[in-house]
């Protein structure tokens, strides 16, 4: 699916982002915070924004792309309004997290790493959310759902629909 970045609609956010860039510009190692802020504001890294970072921080676009593709938190398609992270850490895995992930995929009709066409949900996977004593764990946005069972999935999703 093609996503078009709407410059007009994002005008306010872009302004905020530019202000942020000029604030951190002089710091050493400003690229990571810049990318993190962009991901936070726009929910993904649009080409237009990467070009802006390149101009402002004076770093070649190719290098920025190299860094951005290295880290799993950055995405090049918009993440959904609600981001589902099924923890696949060891503790969750031995307690059946894989089948929970599959249930979410089945319910939403998308695979891990994808976003629903209405931009409402996207599914990611987390390596370990650090809530191992309550495994298996699912995080939606910043809400944690502990001790999730397969049959709970539908109910959990209904809260966000």
């Amino acid at each position, binding site marked *: 699916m093609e996503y078009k970045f709407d410059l007009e609609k994002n005008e306010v956010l872009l302004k905020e982002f530019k202000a942020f860039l000029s604030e951190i510009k002089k710091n*050493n*190692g*400003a*690229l*990571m*915070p810049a*990318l*993190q802020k962009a991901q936070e504001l726009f929910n993904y890294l649009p080409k237009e924004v990467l070009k802006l970072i390149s101009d402002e921080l004076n*770093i070649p676009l190719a290098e920025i792309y*190299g*860094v951005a593709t*290295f*880290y*799993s*938190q*950055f995405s090049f398609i918009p993440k959904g309004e609600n981001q589902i992270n099924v923890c*696949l*850490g*060891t*503790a969750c*895995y*031995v*307690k059946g997290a894989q*089948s929970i992930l599959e249930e979410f995929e089945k319910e939403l009709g998308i695979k891990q790493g994808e976003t629903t066409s209405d931009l409402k949900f996207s599914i990611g996977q*987390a*390596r*370990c*959310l*650090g*809530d*191992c*004593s*309550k*495994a298996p764990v699912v995080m939606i946005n*910043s809400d944690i759902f502990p001790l999730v069972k*397969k049959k709970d999935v539908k109910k959990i999703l209904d809260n966000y629909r």
Partner: protein
Amino acid sequence: MDRDRLLNIRNEKKPEIVEKLIRDDVVEIRAERVVLKGDYYKNQLRIALRNCDIINPFDIEEYIAFDGYFALYKALNDLSQREVVDIMKNSLLRGRGGAGFPTGKKWEEAFSFDADQKYIICNADEGDPGAFMDRSILEKDPHSVLEGMAIGGYAIGANKGFIYVRAEYPQAVKTLRHAIAQAKENGLLGEDIFGMGFNFDIELRLGSGAFVCGEGTALIESIEGHRGMPRPKLQRTAHVGLWGKPTIINNVETFANVAPIILNGAEWFRSIGTEKSPGTKVFSLVGKIENAGLVEVPMGTKLRDIVFDIGGGCQNNKEYKAVQTGGPSGGCIPKEYLDVSVDFESLDSIGSIMGSGGMVVMDENTCMIDIAKYFLEFSVDESCGKCIPCREGTRRMYEILELITEGKAEMNDLEELEKLSHVVSNTSLCGLGQTAPNPVVTTLKYYKDEYLAHIVDKKCPAKSCKALITYTISDRCIGCSICKKNCPVDAIDGELKKKYSIDNEKCIKCGSCYEVCPVKPVKAVEIY
């Protein structure tokens, strides 16, 4: 802030807090220490976790009430930089991030190396799946880390610190931001701390989801704004680190141990734990265990005591099969070694590692090949791709494990797997690659019969590998039709009140029928 104010806050606040906690039945006084109440905590000795669940992490005064920032005062007022380094050296504290390098030695290297700028980094990129001790410390006692870092900064002559926190810990980031601001307001971080001319500032840097950034040099690359790829170790980071300057990187739990050591002395610390691994270690005891949670015990405690006395053994009375320690770099410890003493040397000697302290308990239903495959998949995913043995080798190993779990492997695949393990661990650049084969090596060593069952008999003894199991319905079936209703592929047929049957051609082995079968005490759906 000065000593009198520290004392005032402590004298005023502590009785208040303790009284309230005792009233709420949260804590008790044991050997003059305020400790959490309950059986789970009875056999624990909490140093790094000393304040967790006791103080309010958003109130710096509560931290001060429990001796907080007294160690920093002592270091700045009573001790020279050299003396702080010596105390740390004598304490024999070893890095709690996993490798166990002596902290004092690291500090000495940076202390004695001349440079115009030095850095302290706190590695809070806790990536091992199944480990969450660092997150707990950051969220429940952030000042203990800040104080440890400031003492480290004074000791080596650094005035700038970074905390590199993984992006998956938003709450920890929030707590740290708040704690740093509070410490600055109170003159415990920033310019001229305690009015003694020492400046130390801490900046937060966030990870972005790359496991390899827990490796020191990769972490430095990431802070500098690059791909997080490890550097060849031509120089120590204590000499040439962040932006080419001497840099000390210590783990969260290591920093949390610093203040108590400065306050109570090296001898006190060495009196706890074993001779070569003094002090305590925090473990996150998780998986198929009755009482999951954080456990802090003296080094040298027997694994059995942790899993059974504190953890209460496996859930649902299942049989213990293994404990996995050290995450993707570690190994599985079988029943025979339950009496192993948990310290750096002993775990090394049986092929596992201490690692950052994750302990994932597995029971009879866990397939060890599936676990090895799980960790290999992790390493394949997280390999940064810089060196070939790790990038390609782990992938080939993963493919072989996949064949085994699908029942398609031959005996020579096993030989190939062993050979590859050797090559990958001997020729990879950084710790990730060097230790990635460990889960395979230890499972091959202790659970070879399971590998053979998969390869020769095409059976999965734990009944977990989908390709090697079949579902059937036994005569115990009461004909309730629940399984038929729940089958997603209509593989179950039968009439009400009569025995149902599963069409194995159609069955996708999702396990739904087994889960919903109401027959007790033994389900009518059976797995072979």
